[in-house]
């Protein structure tokens, strides 16, 4: 399998920059498996990242890749998709990138239902800067900027995306790789805004400070604390306390932004043509005289 994925990698860029035990490579593997499964054309697939450990993934991928400014990946991706709707545009981002500095772009991209697939690597921490708390760091956890424990509650990012207008929302973990791959593939296939939240481990900057020993233990934690959405119906709120609900969480059919835009263009061209200059109020805009 690995060999089949190698064509998607800039192999001379390895070894990668991620720490031992980091789950980002697992998420990246799932993304590539999904791309392979769908047979996406490499020349027609654009992968956009923000800033942070997860977003550095784009540098290892042999596509047109764009590593943007912090939090803004979705806004750059919106420009690409709107300019060239025929391209597949995938965004890789992290919890801080997408929900703190990029929170506004996140909800508006979801609201527009523009056909972007977001793979959100949620490692519950700002890893690259050395372990500061993010909007997805659970309460009462330690971070370098929360040495006495975090106070703030977390976003439910899947619920946030659903409420904002996303038409495909799923969550999985780096333990549940088959599910993660199929959710990413489902998100890419969905014509609209898709969010796949990937719960991933940062042993260096989250686990180490929060009594989780290493990458392997954190994977086991994911195994023991994830509950598939289908099983939640038989569980009481008490049983669900502290669990991660995984699976396809939301899907609906809503017209996609660039599709509607193309209809508007067709109508504007048919009804009024390209025009020359904007008409002056109450008069001829421009004339020619011989």
């Amino acid at each position, binding site marked *: 399998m690995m060999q089949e994925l190698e064509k998607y990698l800039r192999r001379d860029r390895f070894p990668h920059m991620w720490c031992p035990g980091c789950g980002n490579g697992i998420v990246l593997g799932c993304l590539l498996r999904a791309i392979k499964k769908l047979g996406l054309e490499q020349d027609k697939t654009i992968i956009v990242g923000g800033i942070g450990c997860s977003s550095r993934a784009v540098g290892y991928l042999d596509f*047109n890749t764009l590593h943007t400014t912090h939090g803004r990946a979705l806004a750059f991706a919106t420009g690409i998709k709107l300019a*060239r709707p025929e391209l597949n545009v995938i965004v890789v981002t992290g919890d801080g990138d997408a929900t703190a500095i990029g929170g506004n772009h996140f909800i508006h991209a979801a609201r527009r239902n523009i056909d972007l697939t977001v793979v959100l690597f949620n490692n519950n921490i700002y890893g690259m800067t050395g372990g500061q708390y993010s909007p997805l760091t659970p309460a009462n956890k330690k971070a370098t900027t929360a040495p006495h424990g975090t106070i703030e509650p977390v976003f439910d990012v899947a619920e946030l995306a659903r409420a904002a207008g996303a038409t495909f929302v799923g969550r999985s973990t780096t333990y549940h790789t088959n599910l993660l791959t199929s959710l990413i593939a489902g998100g890419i296939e969905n014509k609209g805004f898709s969010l796949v939240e990937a719960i991933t481990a940062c042993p260096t900057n989250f686990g180490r400070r929060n009594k989780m020993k290493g990458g392997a233990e954190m994977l086991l934690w994911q195994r023991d604390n994830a509950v598939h959405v289908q099983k939640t119906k038989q569980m009481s709120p008490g049983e669900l306390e502290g669990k991660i609900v995984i699976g396809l969480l939301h899907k609906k059919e809503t017209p996609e932004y660039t599709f509607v835009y193309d209809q508007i263009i067709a109508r504007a061209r048919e009804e009024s043509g390209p025009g020359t200059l*904007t008409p*002056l109020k109450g008069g001829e805009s421009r004339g020619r005289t011989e």
Partner: protein
Amino acid sequence: MTQVVEMARLMQGNEAVAEGALVAGVRFFAGYPITPSTEIAEIMAERLPRMGGKFIQMEDEIASLAAVIGASLAGVKSITATSGPGFSLMQENIGFAAMAEVPCVIVNVQRSGPSTGMPTAPAQGDVMQARWGTHGDHPVIVLSPSSVREAYDLTVRAVNLAEKYRVPVVLLLDEVIGHLREKVILPAPGELEIVNRKGPGVAPAGYLPYRPDETGVPPMANFGDGYRYHVTGLAHDELGLPTNNPEVAEQLLLRLHEKINRNLDDIIMDDSMHLEDAGVVVLAYGATARSAGRAVREARNSGIKAGLYRPLTLWPFPARRVAAVAEKVHTIIVPEMNLGQYRLEVERVVGDRDRVRGVNRVNGELITPGEILALLREVV
């Protein structure tokens, strides 16, 4: 034989910017409403879809420039328009466009600041921000028109320069020029030079996305056209891939400046009046240059040998040309709707602060010809 004559037309400065952009081939606009630039967005929203182009109102100005850069990477000439507060928000992505060499045009219709200031009042307080607003040493081109026709021409020029040199180009209007309505006769489409970015010219296997050609600018492949490469705001090598190698980083930074510095004659545009025998020159740009022109004409009528020097390209600073002007005159007067931002640069080049005088206003009102004329009389 019949002659085709374009009829004169009444046009607003902001409207001229929108029309200029369309003629230059812009087919993507992303923006956020802000006085006094909003007409540009409104016209683009109306016109672009009719021409097969795209307009999008983003959630803020940060996103607006991000979307513009994304669309430009996908091969579409792209532009945004804003005013001071929005221009401040765009600064980080202006740096991205400079570093990643993505052609784009940012129109800033200046209003009185700092902060929310006086939204409907003119100012020229963003002259230094346009040059140095984003962090790090970066190249930038800034143009500033003084009339509606010039707003049209310089918009076309801004798009051309962005495509040619792969830099963000700032078109700096002020509220007066943005909202001014005056008679214009636009050039026929064929009369305008339209520049498109240079494509790779080699097969994808041989393409190095950040290797410059003989002009110092790397040919640009558009996303989705079969040339797979990486674009980043990190220091990068010729493949576009990130590096911490000091030599490679330095070469990149020096080249980004060199591609502008070796083409100054192409980039710098200016205009002048009565320089031949002038003993005193008014150096002015934007709306202030209109008052300056009137003051110079009135001074001439009363026997003062005054001249006008008008930089249309504010940055890079036309240092050699200003130095040449300074050699022949005893005083240069720099009127500005700020507290002397551009005057600092003139002083640097002239080297004698006593020979450079300012007329400055920051109250949201235009500098009048009378104020400039009074100083012209004083210095002679």
